[in-house]
């Protein structure tokens, strides 16, 4: 095996003017080089693995393979390369300003399928310079339901705020390292990816090969949070370089490199105008959002931000306008509840402020607006809004009010202990909780085991394994009889959901239920053929299929599997359903003849978009001398249908919440505005929450409505996303609560200096409310 090292762009936007690698390639131990000229062209605005026109500091330009990393690094240093600096911009608002620079040579945004340039010529930039998001500029996306002006006319309280949420690196603890080798024309790649089935196609395309010529091995993923949903462009480097040098290539990505190209959540600069009735009900909502798009892709966090606002606050009248502006900062990607976290971070403080102004209980204002049943929400399609499959938010709120002793919590608000003041915060967060329409695949083997195949991926949430229980439940057979196959495309994996967006739990309980039911049907048919009678006469239970009421007249799963192989056809995978995905067909064909093979598509009714909900309750102590914030307690209530696995469910609620603490309390970038370079590029400077940031007086609590979603066969929904916003919003509201009922923050994260400035209004703000990366 040889090792690769990368040459990274030293500038935020540049063009390679001249490059001579001959000295590097002549060094002993150097095996070869891969440049942007060696890789298939990438269509704008997508990110390539290597480029001759870098759009951010740290973007990979070329890779060199050598017998060891030190030699590869020395060779990278020996490359004679010259960059031509190009104009760059770090802040979307600066690019929108007339005469402002564009992040890309062809423009600063996408209009339809093309890169184009938008400048806000007509808006009042003096207003912006005073910290107010200007209105009236051109946007690329807009929608409206109801009549927003009429809505404001009937409002008793209107809050018109400029708000900001920061860009935030994913920082998975395992960097996006990959290793690849070629054997008999096939590429074998070990990569760090969240999803297995959904990574195969894109990676094969990037390597210029057929998916059948790629073996992707990814049994465990050391964190992704949305940054490795379907692999990453940099995986291509180990694959192509390996083919070029004819040896296995390992590209170990460093922490600093991960900070550059390991993706980030897009920041949003926005104007949000809320109209409230005197009972706290949101009647009108008007949003204008500018998203920091980084240099590549088309992430649409601001649109999902609007959808979540629509779902959480259920305004009858709502207008949304927004656009993404490219910047010369690291590439953006979905990050755990993309758009949803920004929605809560920006809007929960406004709703909380309204409760205080209207004299309403802060939990009640959440409840009065919360969706219920099959609530409608979001961007209308052909004039009609969609709906959720279920919402038991009010039930969750009611449970939490008692179990968490909301009255007792509130009584501690503003209690003073020396220089420390207690603050209480609560916030609702919603997000998508499941996909549908993917395939289930299982084999009942002659040894009686049920082998359940899953291509979703494994982030350690256990959803890939927990969802297999749906198949065993359909077969009414003990879990111990199951074996799970995952994480390696040579092991015949079906078309599966991404391990992202909380999709897996809902999608794969459905698909495994489908495969389980079909296997049950096959077992009954085999038993009827063998023992006489009709399939309906037979019961499947406890690893056997037997004549109902006469358990002794039946077959073990092992015996039935033997008979399935003998019968062939649809029973052992030689004939397959026509509606399953091509990848599933391939996998099932590979398994044909090994036992009773059941491949089935999830064709169950969806009933709407599957969404789950979390309500965070935070208790903080703010030191009014130093601005330090310490979490004293955090509790979370939720609605995510029936709970599949309580221990993992609780871990998602709390882990998500703590990631939200990072959003509220300190994770952000700092960039040098003069040179466009990163200042905070490691853990200690771009600091995620540590174990000292969580409450330690007692274990954090959680509760759940635990009511079944009517459109999932076992009643469950995903729970990965919604908890993050709940943690962020609850902490933001708690800090404001500690400082006074008239205090609220319009920017996250809340840094200590912001707290001290709030407490001393004579001290001027350190920067404009909307300034990025400071």
């Amino acid at each position, binding site marked *: 095996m040889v090792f690769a090292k990368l*040459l990274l762009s030293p500038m935020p936007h540049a063009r390679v003017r001249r490059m001579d690698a001959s000295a590097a390639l002549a060094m002993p131990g150097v095996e070869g080089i891969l440049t942007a000229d060696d890789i298939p062209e990438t269509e704008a605005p997508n990110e390539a693995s290597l480029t001759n026109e870098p759009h951010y500091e740290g973007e990979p330009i070329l890779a060199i393979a050598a017998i060891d990393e*030190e030699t590869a690094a020395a060779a990278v240093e020996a490359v004679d390369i010259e960059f031509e600096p190009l104009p760059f911009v770090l802040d979307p608002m600066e690019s929108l300003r007339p005469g402002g620079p564009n992040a890309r040579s062809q423009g600063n945004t996408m209009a339809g399928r093309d890169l184009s340039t938008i400048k806000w010529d007509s808006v009042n930039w003096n207003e912006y310079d005073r910290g107010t998001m200007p209105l009236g500029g051109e946007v690329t996306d807009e929608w409206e339901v109801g009549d927003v002006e009429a809505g404001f006319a009937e409002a008793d309280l209107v809050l018109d705020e400029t708000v900001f949420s920061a860009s935030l690196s994913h920082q998975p*603890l395992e960097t996006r390292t990959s290793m690849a080798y070629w054997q008999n024309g096939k590429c074998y790649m070990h990569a760090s990816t969240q999803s297995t089935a959904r990574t195969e196609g894109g990676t094969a395309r990037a390597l210029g090969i057929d998916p059948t010529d790629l073996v992707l091995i990814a049994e465990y993923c050391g964190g992704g949070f949305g940054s490795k949903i379907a692999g990453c462009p940099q995986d291509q480097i180990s694959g192509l370089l390996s083919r070029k040098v004819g040896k296995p290539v390992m590209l170990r990505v*460093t922490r600093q490199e991960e900070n550059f190209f390991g993706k980030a959540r897009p920041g949003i600069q926005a104007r949000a105008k809320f109209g409230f009735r005197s009972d706290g009900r949101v009647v009108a909502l008007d949003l204008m959002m500018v998203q920091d798009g980084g240099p590549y892709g088309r992430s649409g966090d601001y649109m999902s931000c609007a959808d979540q606002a629509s779902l959480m606050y259920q305004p009858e009248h709502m207008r949304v306008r927004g656009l993404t502006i490219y910047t010369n900062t690291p590439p953006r990607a979905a990050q755990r509840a993309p758009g949803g976290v920004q929605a809560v971070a920006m809007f929960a403080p406004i709703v909380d402020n309204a409760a205080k102004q209207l004299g309403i209980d802060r939990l009640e204002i959440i409840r009065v607006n919360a969706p219920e049943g099959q609530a409608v929400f979001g961007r209308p399609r052909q004039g009609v809004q969609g709906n959720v499959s279920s919402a038991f938010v009010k039930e969750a709120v009611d449970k939490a009010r008692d179990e968490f002793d909301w009255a007792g919590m509130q009584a501690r608000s503003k209690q003073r202990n020396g220089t420390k003041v207690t603050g209480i915060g609560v916030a609702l967060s919603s997000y998508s909780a499941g996909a549908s329409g993917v395939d289930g695949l299982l084999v009942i083997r002659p040894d009686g085991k049920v082998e359940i195949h899953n291509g979703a991926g494994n*982030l350690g949430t256990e959803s890939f394994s927990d969802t297999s229980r749906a198949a065993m439940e359909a077969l009414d057979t003990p879990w111990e009889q199951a074996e799970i196959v995952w994480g390696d495309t040579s092991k015949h994996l079906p078309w599966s959901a991404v391990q992202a967006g909380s999709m897996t739990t809902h999608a794969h309980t459905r698909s495994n239920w489908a495969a389980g039911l079909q296997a049950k049907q096959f077992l009954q048919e085999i038993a009827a053929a063998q023992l006489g009678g009709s399939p309906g006469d037979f019961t499947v239970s406890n690893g056997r299929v037997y004549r109902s009421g006469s358990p002794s007249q039946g077959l073990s799963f092992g015996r039935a599997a033997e008979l399935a192989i003998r019968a062939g056809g649809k029973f052992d995978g030689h004939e397959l359903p026509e509606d399953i995905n091509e990848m599933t067909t391939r996998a099932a064909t590979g398994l044909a003849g090994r036992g009773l093979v059941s491949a089935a598509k999830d064709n169950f009714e969806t009933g709407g978009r599957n969404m789950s909900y979390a309500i965070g309750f935070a208790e903080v102590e703010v030191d009014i001398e130093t601005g330090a914030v310490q979490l004293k307690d955090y509790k979370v209530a939720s609605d995510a249908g029936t709970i599949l696995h309580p*221990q993992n469910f609780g*871990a998602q609620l709390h882990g998500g919440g703590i990631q939200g603490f990072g959003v509220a309390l300190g994770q952000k970038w700092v960039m040098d505005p003069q040179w466009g370079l990163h200042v905070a590029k490691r853990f200690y400077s771009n600091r995620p*929450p540590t174990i*000292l940031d*969580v409450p330690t007086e007692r274990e954090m609590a959680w509760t759940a409505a635990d009511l079944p979603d009517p459109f999932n066969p076992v009643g469950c929904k995903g729970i990965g996303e919604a908890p993050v916003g709940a943690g962020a919003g609850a902490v933001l509201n708690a800090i404001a609560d500690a400082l006074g009922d008239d205090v609220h923050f319009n920017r996250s994260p809340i840094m200590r200096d912001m707290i001290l400035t709030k407490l001393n209004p004579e001290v001027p703000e350190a920067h404009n409310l909307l300034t990025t990366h400071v």
Partner: protein
Amino acid sequence: MGDVEHIQTAEQQGVSRRSFIKGVIATGASVSASNYVLRGGHGVALAQAPGSVERLVTLTVNGQQRRVDVMPQETLATTLRYKLGLTGTKIGCDRAECGACTVLVDGVAHYSCSTLTHQVRGREVMTIEGLEGADGSLHPVQQAVVDLQGFQCAFCMSGFVMNMVELTNENPDATRAEAAQHLSGNLCRCVDYNRILNVAEKACELTRNGMRS
């Protein structure tokens, strides 16, 4: 497990931070471009810097004597993972920020990414692979992880587990807050800290109840 202790340890071994850096520069490592530095030495002429140390050394790892060819600037994490095949130790940052590489040296938790392999000659190194008893019995910390299903993606797990082993040895009566202080040199990005503290408490409890440690 702070820097101070680390430097003291280094000085005990006659290797100061300054000589570590000088050693790296002397061997021609490209510090700026290379966060991970690996050199197998196969086929490449290596200049032995003046004052550099013996390369073929014997290490005691998980109770076994291991002979291994070690460069002067090589970190213990590199030796463990790439020379001795002990890949349970993870490298998350390679700069003493995250603790994923934590191992025990003479029972004390160390960041192996920031410990020179030459510093641990003659000392007992224990990695996660060495925790299980000869009869297959689990260490109390391992048992607690299994019982409570601690950790999500678990890339941080081996580092946390090794640090918890030190905790259960030093202070099995630790409160939740003391456990958090003890483990504060380790990062988890799934931020599963609530469950990690549950695991630490359970491991302490199992230790107090006499489970082997």
